[in-house]
C-alpha cells in the first residue's frame, strides 16, 4: 500500500512538473473556457436527454406496455451506437496508461503491483468521467421516476459497460500497436457492422434495446458486462506483465526508411533542395504527417457542404471552403515554422545557407501544397463554376498574404515541438501568436468578400481577395528579406530557447 501511495505521489509530481503546462495566461484562459463550454454542453445534454427522447417520433411501439420506463427503453435502443462511437473516439484520444516504469524496473517492487497500478490509473481517465457528465443528471431523474432497484441495476450496468469499453480499448490499442493485423481486423469489423446496419441486415436498435433493457429487467444479466470487463482487465494484466521489459515498452518503433535522392525540386537550387528535405521531414514525423493528412481529409469538406440545400449558392460558404482547402496546411504547419526544427536549429545556424533561402524554401512548400489543394478541388466546379473562381482567388491570397503572415508569426517565440506525438488534443507549442493568425488568414478574406457583398457584387469581393494576394506576391522578396534580417537579429535568443527546452 505504501508503494502504491508513493507511485501516486510520483505521478502527481510528473503531472505537476510537466513542461507541457502552458505558462501563457491567454492560452490558459482559452483552454479553460473551451473546457467549461464542453462540460456545460455535456451536462445540458444530460439534463434534457429525457425530453429529447420523448420528442423523437416512435413507430410501432405500444405506449401502454412501456409505461414509465418508456424514456429509458427509448434510450436503450441507441446505447449500443453510443458505446460503439465511444470506442472509436477512445481509439483516437485515449492514451494508454503509461507509467515511466523504466526507472522502477530494477527496484524491489513486484511487477504485478506496477501493472495493477498502471491499469488502475486508467479508471480515472477523463474520458470515463465525461460519460458521467451526461448520465448523472439522467440517472438522478431516473431514480425519481422508476423503482429504486431498477434504476440502480441499470446504472450499474451502464458504469460496467463504460469500464468494459475502457479495458477493451486499452487491450485493442496495445495489441494493435504490436500486431498490425489486429488493427486491420478491427477495421474490417467496423466496416462490416456499419454496412450491416446500413443495409438493414441486422437490427441494431433491437439488439441494443435487448441488451440494455435486460440490465433492469433481469439483473442477473449484469454479470455479463462486469465479467467481460474483468476478462479484459485480466488480458491486459497478462499482456503488460509479460511485456514489462525495456525493449518491448519503448513506444518508438523504428520503421525502415529507404533512401530518397534528390528529386525534381533540386533543380531549383538550394531553395528547392530545402523544400525537398522539408517534405521528407513532414512525411517522416508522426505529428507533421498528421497535419498533412488532416489537410487531405478536409478536401472532402465540400462534399458535406455544397450538396445541401441550405448552402447551395451561398457564396460566403465558398470563401470559407476555399480558405480551409488552400489555407489549412499553411496555417497548421506554418504556425510552428521554426518550432518543428527546434531539434536541429544549431545545424540551421551554422550551415552555409542564407536565411532568405531558408524562408524562400518555406514559401515554396506552402505554394506547392496550397496549389495542389487548389488543383484537387477543381471537381467542385460541378456545384457551380464560381467555386473555382473563389478557390483560385483565395489561393492567391493565401500564398501572397496568408503565408507571409504565417511565416512571421511562426518565427515569433517558437517552441520546440515533440515530433513523435500526434496532433489530436496536442497543445504543445500553442502560443498567443497561433490564435492571432486566424485574423489575417480567415478574417481578412471574409471581410474583403463582405465588401463585395455590401456592393452587391461577388466579383468585386473575389477581385479584392485576388488583388490583395497579387500585391502580397509582388512583395514576397522584400518581405522574405525582412524576415531573414529579423531571424538574424533573433538567432541567439531562439537557439538558446531551443537548447533549454
Amino acid at each position, binding site marked *: 500500500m505504501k508503494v502504491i501511495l508513493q507511485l501516486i505521489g510520483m505521478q502527481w509530481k510528473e503531472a505537476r512538473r510537466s513542461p507541457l503546462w502552458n505558462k501563457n495566461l491567454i492560452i490558459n484562459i482559452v483552454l479553460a473556457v473551451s473546457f467549461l463550454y464542453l462540460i456545460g454542453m455535456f451536462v445540458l445534454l444530460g439534463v434534457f436527454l429525457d425530453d429529447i427522447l420523448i420528442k423523437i417520433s416512435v413507430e410501432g411501439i405500444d405506449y401502454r406496455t412501456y409505461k414509465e420506463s418508456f424514456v429509458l427503453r427509448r434510450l436503450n435502443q441507441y446505447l449500443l451506437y453510443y458505446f460503439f462511437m465511444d470506442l472509436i473516439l477512445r481509439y483516437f484520444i485515449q492514451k494508454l496508461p503509461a507509467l515511466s516504469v523504466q526507472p522502477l524496473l530494477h527496484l524491489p517492487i513486484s511487477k504485478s503491483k506496477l501493472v495493477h497500478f498502471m491499469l488502475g490509473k486508467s479508471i480515472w481517465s477523463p474520458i470515463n468521467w465525461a460519460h458521467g457528465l451526461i448520465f448523472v443528471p439522467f440517472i438522478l431523474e431516473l431514480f425519481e421516476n422508476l423503482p429504486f432497484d431498477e434504476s440502480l441495476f441499470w446504472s450499474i450496468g451502464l458504469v460496467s459497460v463504460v469500464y468494459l469499453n475502457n479495458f477493451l480499448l486499452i487491450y485493442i490499442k496495445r495489441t494493435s500497436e504490436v500486431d498490425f493485423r489486429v488493427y486491420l481486423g478491427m477495421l474490417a469489423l467496423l466496416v462490416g457492422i456499419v454496412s450491416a446496419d446500413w443495409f438493414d441486415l441486422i437490427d441494431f436498435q433491437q439488439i441494443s434495446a435487448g441488451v440494455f433493457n435486460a440490465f433492469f429487467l433481469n439483473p442477473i444479466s449484469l454479470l455479463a458486462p462486469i465479467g467481460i470487463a474483468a476478462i479484459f482487465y485480466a488480458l491486459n494484466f497478462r499482456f503488460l506483465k509479460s511485456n514489462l521489459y525495456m525493449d518491448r515498452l519503448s513506444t518508438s518503433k523504428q520503421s525502415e*526508411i529507404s*533512401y530518397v535522392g534528390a528529386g525534381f525540386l533540386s533543380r531549383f537550387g538550394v531553395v528547392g533542395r530545402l523544400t525537398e528535405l522539408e517534405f521528407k521531414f513532414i512525411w517522416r514525423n508522426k505529428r507533421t504527417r498528421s497535419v498533412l493528412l488532416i489537410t487531405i481529409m478536409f478536401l472532402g469538406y465540400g462534399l458535406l457542404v455544397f450538396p445541401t440545400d441550405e448552402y447551395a449558392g451561398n457564396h460566403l460558404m465558398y470563401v470559407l471552403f476555399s480558405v480551409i482547402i488552400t489555407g489549412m496546411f499553411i496555417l497548421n504547419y506554418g504556425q510552428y515554422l521554426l518550432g518543428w526544427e527546434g*531539434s*536541429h536549429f544549431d545545424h540551421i545556424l551554422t550551415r552555409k545557407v542564407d536565411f532568405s533561402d531558408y524562408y524562400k524554401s518555406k514559401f515554396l512548400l506552402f505554394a506547392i501544397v496550397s496549389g495542389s489543394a487548389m488543383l484537387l478541388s477543381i471537381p467542385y466546379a460541378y456545384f457551380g463554376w464560381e467555386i473555382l473562381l473563389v478557390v483560385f482567388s483565395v489561393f492567391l491570397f493565401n500564398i501572397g498574404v496568408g503565408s507571409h503572415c504565417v511565416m512571421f508569426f511562426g518565427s515569433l517565440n517558437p517552441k520546440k515541438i515533440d515530433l513523435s506525438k500526434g496532433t489530436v488534443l496536442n497543445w504543445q507549442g500553442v502560443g498567443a501568436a497561433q490564435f492571432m493568425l486566424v485574423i489575417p488568414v480567415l478574417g481578412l478574406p471574409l471581410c474583403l468578400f463582405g465588401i463585395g457583398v455590401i456592393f452587391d457584387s461577388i466579383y468585386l469581393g473575389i477581385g479584392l481577395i485576388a488583388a490583395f494576394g497579387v500585391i502580397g506576391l509582388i512583395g514576397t522578396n522584400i518581405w522574405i528579406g525582412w524576415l531573414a534580417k529579423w531571424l538574424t537579429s533573433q538567432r*541567439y535568443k531562439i537557439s538558446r530557447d531551443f537548447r533549454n527546452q
Partner: protein
Amino acid sequence: MDIRIEGLTKTFGDYTAVQVDSMHIPSGESFGLIGNNGAGKTTLFRSLIDLIEPSTGSAFIGEFETNKTDSWKAFTGSYLDENFIVGHLLPEEYFDFIASIHGMSESDLANKLAEFETLFNGEITGGKKLIRDLSKGNQKKVGIAAAILFDPKVLVLDEPFANLDPSTQIRLKELLKKLKNDKGVTMLISSHDLAHVTEVCERIVLLEKGDVIEDIKTSSETLKNLENYFSDVGKTSIED
C-alpha cells in the same frame, strides 16, 4: 585560415562563463581545449561559431568576424552536439544535402564517403535507419563526417572522442592527424580525454572557470603535467 579571439567574454547574469583576452590560432594549427565541466569550453566554441552572442569582444575566422557575416560558414565545419544533425534524414540524405550546399559533385561526395569507410565501420551508410534512430556514437560519427565532408579549412569539434568505441577513437585520431598534415586544416578540439587530445593537438589550452590557465606547446611531458593538474584541482580549493 587562422582564428583570432579578442577580449571575448560571455556572462550569464553575474556568472562569467568565458573570459579570453586575446588568443591567436595560426592557420593549420591543431588546438586542444581542455578543462573540467563548467570551465567554458562549449561556450567558447559556441561564441566562436556564432551560436551565442558574446557579451564583449569578438571572434574572427580568417578575416571574417563571425557574428557580423556568414562568409566563414563556407569553409568552417563544426560539430558540437546533436543539435547539429537533422534527425529525420538517412545519413546518406544528410551527406547529400551538405554536399549540395557546398557545391560538391556526386563523385566528390562518393570519394569522400569512401575515405570515411573505416571510420563508419559499415554502420552508417547503406542502412535503413534514420539518424535519430542511430546510437549516440553513430550519430556522432555522422555529425563529424558531415563537418569534414566538404574539405573545410577550419574544423571545430566538441568532445569528438566521447561516446565512441575504442576502434573508432583510434581511427578518428588518425583521420584528424591526416587532415592536419595533408590539408593543413586549422582544428579546434575540446576533450575530457587528456591522452587523446595531447596526441592529436600540438597546442593545449587549459580553461578553468572561464579563464585561460595554461597555454602550452604539447611535449612528452604534457600529459603527465596535465594529469597532475587535474588530480590536484579539487584538493587545493578544499584546502583553501
